[in-house]
């Protein structure tokens, strides 16, 4: 009798394990499936499958990318703590820096194109000479994983958020920490407004918060997302802010009126990265669903679907001339996409 019960338990356990595995695999398949945007009949969006370049040097996730102001050098930050410097003109790997002890979570390049700044899960922010690859300095005051960094447009201040729910501001010239502000929750993404006066941060609780640059005193907060805000981006004129969230949507906010302009839905998985083009005409979103979408930020209309990444798209950035888009992802590739056609559609 006892043996029969034991057998039944084993069968039940095996059945449940199989069901759970199948459910997990199905969920994975659905998350990763490339689904074309279900546009209204009047709308038509084309899909770009071909990239201008695909850069791959290893099999490690690439969490962050940064493009130099002249558009020639691309830095990609890897999960294993290394940073790769690519020559985009030739498509060749220029240098690999053993930059951090843990994943490189964020990268940015100064406006003069001289300095590369990297934030990492090893709690450190490193400054590098972009041309030589030499290490310049380390800002070691972060107490936990650095989740995001943002450089002010004048290149004087650096803001960084960490997993200990803090926002820190450094003066880059003296490498001194100016301010520390505790946030209500972990800030996952940061961006300075084009005039450099305001810092925006996307938070784990779905709120987009703003801080005054010099004092880091909190300002308004935008609520509306149902999931963590993974990425924020200001429009070049500073009137709009785009936020991408785990709720699978992207929102475009009108900042002077403080209201929601559009909720852009088209991804079928969390939106991990958003970026305005420097000319302000396009807005891009990269998602866990492996696709990148190009939108008209004013009308909220989808323009293009970029398909090619085989895993989640972690980071995207437009080239300075707005003609191409660079993306990186968990498939360990950096891809360069032509965007000129999307602009022409407008």
């Amino acid at each position, binding site marked *: 009798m006892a043996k029969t019960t034991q057998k039944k338990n084993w069968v039940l356990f095996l059945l449940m394990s199989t069901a759970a595995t199948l459910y*997990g695999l199905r*969920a*994975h398949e659905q*998350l*990763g499936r490339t689904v074309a945007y279900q546009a209204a009949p009047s709308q038509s969006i084309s899909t770009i499958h071909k990239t201008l370049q695909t850069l791959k040097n290893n*099999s*490690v*996730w690439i969490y962050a990318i940064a493009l130099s102001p002249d558009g020639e050098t691309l830095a990609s930050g890897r*999960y294993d703590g290394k940073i790769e410097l690519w020559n985009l003109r030739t498509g060749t790997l220029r240098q690999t820096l053993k930059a951090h*002890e*843990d994943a490189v979570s964020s990268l940015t390049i100064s406006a003069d194109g001289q300095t590369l700044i990297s934030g990492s*899960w*090893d*709690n450190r922010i490193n400054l590098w000479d972009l041309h030589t690859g030499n290490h310049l300095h*380390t800002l*070691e005051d972060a*107490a*936990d*994983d650095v989740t995001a960094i943002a450089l002010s447009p004048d290149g004087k201040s650096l803001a960084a958020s960490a*997993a*200990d729910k803090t926002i820190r501001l450094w003066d880059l010239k003296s490498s001194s920490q100016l301010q520390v502000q505790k946030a209500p929750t*972990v800030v996952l993404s940061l961006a300075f407004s084009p005039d450099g006066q305001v810092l925006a941060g996307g938070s784990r609780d779905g709120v987009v918060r703003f801080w005054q640059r010099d004092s880091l005193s909190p300002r308004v907060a935008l609520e509306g997302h149902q999931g963590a805000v993974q990425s924020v981006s200001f429009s070049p004129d500073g009137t709009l802010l785009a936020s991408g969230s785990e709720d699978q949507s992207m929102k475009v906010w009108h900042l002077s009126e403080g209201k929601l302009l559009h909720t852009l839905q088209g991804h079928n998985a969390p939106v991990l990265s958003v970026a305005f083009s420097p000319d302000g005409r396009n807005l891009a979103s990269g998602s866990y669903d492996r696709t990148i979408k190009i939108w008209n930020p004013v009308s909220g209309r989808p323009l293009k679907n970029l398909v090619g990444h085989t*895993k*989640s798209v972690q980071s995207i950035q437009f080239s300075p001339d707005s003609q191409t888009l660079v993306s990186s992802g*968990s498939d360990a590739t950096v891809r360069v996409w032509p965007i000129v056609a999307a602009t022409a559609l407008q």
Partner: protein
Amino acid sequence: MFRLDYPPLANWAGFIAALLYVITLLPTILRVVFPSTKTTGIPKSLLIQRRLLGIIAFLMSVIHGYWLVSKRELDFLDFQTYWIYCQGIITFLIFTLLAITSNDWSVKKLKKNWKKLHQLTYFAMFLLLWHVIDKMWGHWTWVTPPSLVITGAITILFLVRMIRENHQSDKPKGQNPESPATKETASKTD
């Protein structure tokens, strides 16, 4: 510049888990490597609390894993996650097996297999040392050096124990009257 950071809560939980786990390994190892400790009663008193400490260590490892996974938003649908965190995940699976079978009912049901199963603890010990070195090297917080010391020390002590036991078992019977008793005690407590 070398400096020690204040550790995040996830690391504290991991450190406490490692510490308690190492304490559960101590009784048998101490008895073999430092036979004089038998007279102090330390191994015996540690032995009494071993099961409870093991369960608490497991719970702390659950907290450690949960905080780390939620903080880093790890994607468990991606194979790389398992590859990168292989030592942590395998150690956690072993801890889970040991925790759910750490009761009298399991001992009775599994009989000889219980002992075999619980010898996985020594495999977990090596994995834990590897896990600490791989994940914490360069992350110098206040808990990194003690974590390295305790996991490193227990591994070395275990190796010494193995050498001693092998050495004793090589000797012809009768030459070392303490040997069978020591082995018997060790097997009872493993």
